[in-house]
């Protein structure tokens, strides 16, 4: 027996059976929680602010493998992982991080993809600070685990290594589902429904799938190649996509209900809201929707695009959300010397993601806070020459819990500029909803659903911005995921879905 070679143990590596990457954890022995607490958060490497303010390449460069595995060591693997409660799609965060920590990339990717249809996207655009990372227990004493950066790392690895984390094909249910809209809610629902064996067709009004991910969020924050790969992955999993199909015009909702066993409406809140001040139709005033669509979807940032976009030296963007910050940073990259945010409340109230505001400040974006627009002014040819504004003071909190801005009398002033981009929100688009009188809407025109996402029309579900009003990518994805569970229950004749169905839809078993 002594001649028998001793089998090489798997080095106590629980992930070794999943992957053959040869990666080893950052430390050669398991760390105690105390030791883990001594590791500082790994900073996300980013393009230099001066450089990036003049190009459209991605700002964040992503972790290296070493940085990612070191950061993974910081996760305490809590028995009660509250981070998951902070995630609208309930990604099993400690599980993918643990697999990453031990170098099991296949396992980490499989687990992440099982929970999240678009992890390359969410790893880049989620407001992690108010979600998973906001709940992370390490945030109580210092910095939270960089969950978003780790998600991005694993998702990008999976994208670069396709096939290795491919889910098993489900057996066909013989049921068909129409998903209207290919934004985050629609794509997520489509991915989930295909996994359950349903035949899913996504209808998109534009010529390319992705919704706000391709027309709205700029290249420097979410490269369009990445969105395309995410869409391609869904198509490879069986999702069919029909572009140039406008429901309410090309097909009616009634036709979809006849053709499909169930319908999920995820058309977003697409109409731009304007300021309703004089001069808004002068040349040089854009809605953020138009400005960003020209630059992103139509590629006007590239001098070879047939689609033009105006370029001003001084650009004022009205609004304080992510769309406003995206617009103002886009203007900077298109050559504006002065790119200014005008927002009627204070910095603490800016609804944009903290990292974006920080990045914008680094890039030299000016912030005119507690300022509201009164009028767009122009030259004799109706080209914008400035925007007349008034300063505001903050009063008592209003219904939204934020302090109400009140105009300060006599504080009017003009900001000289050649372009104004209006990014003060969006509202529901009646194109689809108005075509079906029996579809119940609320006063603002959003679709009314029951607690499981079904509209007033049996078998027609809705989610994302067309139900909740303009919100974030991840909330729309959460809606898509929950709606998929409801649609699945409906198709199986088990509607409304039990808690168990919802829970398994949210944190699907990952085979551990």
């Amino acid at each position, binding site marked *: 027996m002594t001649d028998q070679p001793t089998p090489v143990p798997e080095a106590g590596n629980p992930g070794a059976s999943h992957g053959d990457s040869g990666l080893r954890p950052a430390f050669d022995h398991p760390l105690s929680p105390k030791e883990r607490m001594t590791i500082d958060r790994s900073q996300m490497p980013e393009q230099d602010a001066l450089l990036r303010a003049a190009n459209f390449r991605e700002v964040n460069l992503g972790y290296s493998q070493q940085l990612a595995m070191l950061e993974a060591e910081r996760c305490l693997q809590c028995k009660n992982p509250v981070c998951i409660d902070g995630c609208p799609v309930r990604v099993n965060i400690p599980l993918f991080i643990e697999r990453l920590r031990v170098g099991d990339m296949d396992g980490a990717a499989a687990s992440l993809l099982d929970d999240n249809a678009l992890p390359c996207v969410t790893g880049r655009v989620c407001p992690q600070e108010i979600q998973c990372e906001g709940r992370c227990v390490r945030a109580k004493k210092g910095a939270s685990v960089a969950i978003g950066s780790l998600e991005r790392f694993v998702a990008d690895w999976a994208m670069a290594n396709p096939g290795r984390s491919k889910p098993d094909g489900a057996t066909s249910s013989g049921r068909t589902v129409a998903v209207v809209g290919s934004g985050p809610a629609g794509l997520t629902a489509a991915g989930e429904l295909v996994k359950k064996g349903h035949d899913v067709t996504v209808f998109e*009004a*534009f*010529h390319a799938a992705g919704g706000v991910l391709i027309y709205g969020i700029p290249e420097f924050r979410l490269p369009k190649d990445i969105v395309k790969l995410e869409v391609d992955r869904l198509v490879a999993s069986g999702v069919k996509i029909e*572009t*140039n*199909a*406008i429901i309410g*015009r*090309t*097909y009616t909702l009634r036709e979809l209900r006849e053709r499909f066993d169930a319908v999920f409406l995820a058309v977003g809140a*697409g*109409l*731009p809201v*304007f300021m309703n001040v004089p001069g*808004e*139709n002068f*040349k*040089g005033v*854009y*809605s953020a*929707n*138009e400005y960003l*669509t*020209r630059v992103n979807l*139509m*590629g*006007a940032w590239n*001098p*070879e*695009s*047939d*689609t*033009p*976009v*105006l*370029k*001003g*030296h001084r650009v004022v963007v009205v609004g304080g959300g992510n769309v406003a910050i995206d617009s103002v940073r886009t203007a900077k990259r*298109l*050559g504006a*010397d002065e790119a200014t945010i005008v927002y009627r409340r204070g910095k603490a109230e800016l609804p944009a993601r903290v990292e974006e505001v920080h990045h914008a400040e680094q890039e030299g974006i000016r912030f005119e806070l507690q300022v509201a627009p009164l009028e767009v002014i122009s030259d004799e*040819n*109706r*080209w*914008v020459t400035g925007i007349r504004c008034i300063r505001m003071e903050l009063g008592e909190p209003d219904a939204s819990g934020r302090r109400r801005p009140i105009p300060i009398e006599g504080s009017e002033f003009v900001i000289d500029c*050649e*372009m104004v981009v209006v990014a003060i929100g969006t509202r529901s*688009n*009646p*194109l689809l909803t108005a075509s079906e009188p029996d579809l119940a809407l609320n006063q603002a025109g959003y679709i009314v659903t029951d607690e499981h996402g079904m509209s007033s029309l049996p078998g027609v579900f809705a989610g994302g911005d067309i139900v909740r009003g303009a919100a974030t990518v991840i909330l729309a994805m959460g809606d898509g995921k929950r709606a998929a569970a409801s649609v699945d229950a409906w198709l199986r004749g088990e509607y409304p879905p039990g808690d168990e169905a919802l829970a398994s839809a949210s944190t699907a078993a990952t085979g551990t």
Partner: protein
Amino acid sequence: MHTVIDRAQLSPNVTRLVIEAPRIAEIRKPGQFVIVHRAPGAERIPLTIADADPGHGTITLVIQSVGKSTEDLVALQPGDAIADVAGPLGKATELLDHGRAVCVGGGVGTAVVYPIALGLAARGVEVISVIGGRSKEWVIFEDELRRAGEVITCTDDGSYGRHGFVTDALRDVIEAGGVDAVYAVGPVPMMRAVAEVTRPFGVPTFASLNAIMLDGTGMCGGCRVAVGGKTVYACVDGPEFDAHQVDFRELADRLGTYRDFEAHALEVSHRRAAERLEAPLHAPEGSCLIPGLATAAERQEVAAAAGERGA
């Protein structure tokens, strides 16, 4: 993909393309339009559906080439394909169901007014079409419009039909009496002039607005125009509106937003074809710069000069 089935040159700068689009051919109504996206990197262009053949699954688009994008589009030959055609978009024309209507078409607008004239005729409305062009070779769709009723053709130079503008002929028809509605499609100055001709007579008049748009679903707001003092979207609220209420000055003004860019892109496109020029479509400083702005180099010079003065 949408294959080009047929192509014909109708006038020096107007081309007719018949393309495969079965779904749109089946359901489109007079007055509706499509958005055409020739290929990746191309512009999205709104074009009114001039005709449709549901049997063959085709629609007819009549295109005036005015810039690089439209030139690229009309350069397509039978057998070539268009990547994307979205629609039908916009509201259908509100057609009279009896009485007498005048359809006024100027230039490429003559093709746009054609389905409206046919739709009216099909409902038993008496249709008089008043169409025009600079000279004989610019007059299009005359034979087609005869299917809907009488056609009065005008040319600016008198080389064909009546000498003068369509508005002159229109005034005569209206003064003769009995006109219940006027539908006008053409260049903005023509539509504005038509509105002024009919206003004193109180004849309901509709104009089809060719505003700048991206998506055609109400999402970009680029096609916004004031009608009756209220901002509306040509893509979803129109494209046809009460011509007596439309702010044509604003429409014309907004249509000129990219004039400099379009001229530059067209020039680059032509020179590329002729001499293999390697210049970008967007000028280095961007021909989309708001007119009158200094270039970056000029701005740097000014800043440097100011710095010297300061020192």
